[in-house]
């Protein structure tokens, strides 16, 4: 099972195993990691699962959809490495992925 590291806004780090096929958002919810709201539950509809992907991992992710890009643009403090964590499917290739959570979910 791939390991994902979530770095919270207070700097604390949480390394957890997330099943392949699940999402980075679901991994946070299944491990009670605070800072991911996921109001819609993972359907790219609310942008409350915003995260920053550690740069080296960005190229391993599939391109965001137009809807995701547009919503990201209007999240609290968007950055070039912003993604919606519900749209990142966990694969073996992502073992070790590091994501940081923003100050605020919109």
């Amino acid at each position, binding site marked *: 099972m791939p390991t994902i590291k979530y770095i919270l806004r207070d700097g604390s780090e949480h390394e957890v195993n997330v099943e392949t096929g699940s999402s980075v958002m679901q991994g946070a919810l299944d491990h*009670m990691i605070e800072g991911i709201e996921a109001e*819609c539950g993972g359907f790219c509809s609310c942008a409350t699962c915003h995260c920053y992907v550690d740069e080296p991992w960005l190229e391993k992710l599939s391109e965001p959809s137009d809807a995701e890009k547009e919503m990201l643009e209007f999240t609290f403090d968007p950055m070039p490495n912003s993604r919606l964590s519900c749209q990142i499917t966990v694969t073996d290739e992502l073992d070790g992925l590091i994501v940081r959570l923003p100050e605020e979910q919109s």
Partner: protein
Amino acid sequence: MALSCVVIGASHAAAELVSTLRREGWDGEITVFGEEFYLPYHRPPLSKTFLLQNQTPEDILIRNSDLYDRLSVNFRLGRQVSKIDRAKKQIILGDGVKVGYDKLAICTGSRVRKLDVNGGEVRGIHYLRTVDDVKSIQASIKTRGKAIIIGGGYIGLEMAASLKKIGMEVTLLELSSRLLERVAASELAEFFARVHGEEGIEIKCNKSVSSFESTDGRVKAVACSDGSVYDADFVVVGVGILPNIELAEDAGLRIHNGIVVDQYSRTSDPDIVAAGDCTNHPNELLDCRLRLESVPNAVEQAKSAAASICGKKRAYASIPWFWSDQYDLKLQMVGINRGYDEIVLRGDYKSNRSFVLFYLRQGQLIAADCVNRPKEFMVVKQILSKRLRVDISLLSDESISPREFIVG
């Protein structure tokens, strides 16, 4: 002795409530009673990916079972609760077993409204609310068959899109003179009628279904009161849902279009909270009471309810929002358009598939329906949640970024 919290209903609200309870420091027992045989799962995918992509219930769980184990949340599934005895602080199960509680959470959600017409008790007539509903739909559909959908609300429209994708010939019958009568402006209805028409769905309004015709115990046609008859291999009914309030009502809790709760999700009994579709709750931001059929509402209310159980106060203060995915359309609705007196259009709903309807009341922005317009959705959600001031004159101006709607 440790206190015990009993949750009735293994719903979305329940999933959120039990995990928040542990986060808030509840160290007593937690037991959830659910009528279905599954852990709480997401319902929105049922009409879409779950139906089309052969997902399993495990694929759509709200939290995985490992988390519930780690949190020591005990699920008793396939169990019906028949009574709440407030005097003895216990619930009584369908088989007579009594279970005591210190705190009780009612997360019973809602159920489909059934169509009460002749001949409805045959095979091939389906409703859509649960995993088992979809399993029976999957067993019943066949490519190139004739599907009749009864009801032009969001469930009916999402099912139309999905059944078309499977390759069925789809006709949708709506009782009123247009689609989405109960929930949206006529402009949005007109838009969806056009798109579904373009996708090959036949939409018939002003159709009151009067009976089902069948052969060998299986539906073969749908008859309407105006004499029209539609051949059918398969029928899906989506005519709304009803809140599951009966247990609360029988227990003497206050009911008024749902189980009445305050902003902390507390019912009229100090030891009982309620959250989700089944509640009627105050919305401070909108200054009114609402009963909402929506996931975000269930989630937010459950958080307030969990805090209340732990003796904390976490007021519910969220702007309602909803979404529906059909074909290449992402519809995101935010706010409540009740009592609107003006609509401002951004974009073109008559020939395009991307536009916004802004609803105004006395010059104030109160809601928006955004079709393939995630930016506008995000901005309006922020405006309504934070009560930001808006320059109404800019809403329709496509040369201006939605960000600039906000004044100051």
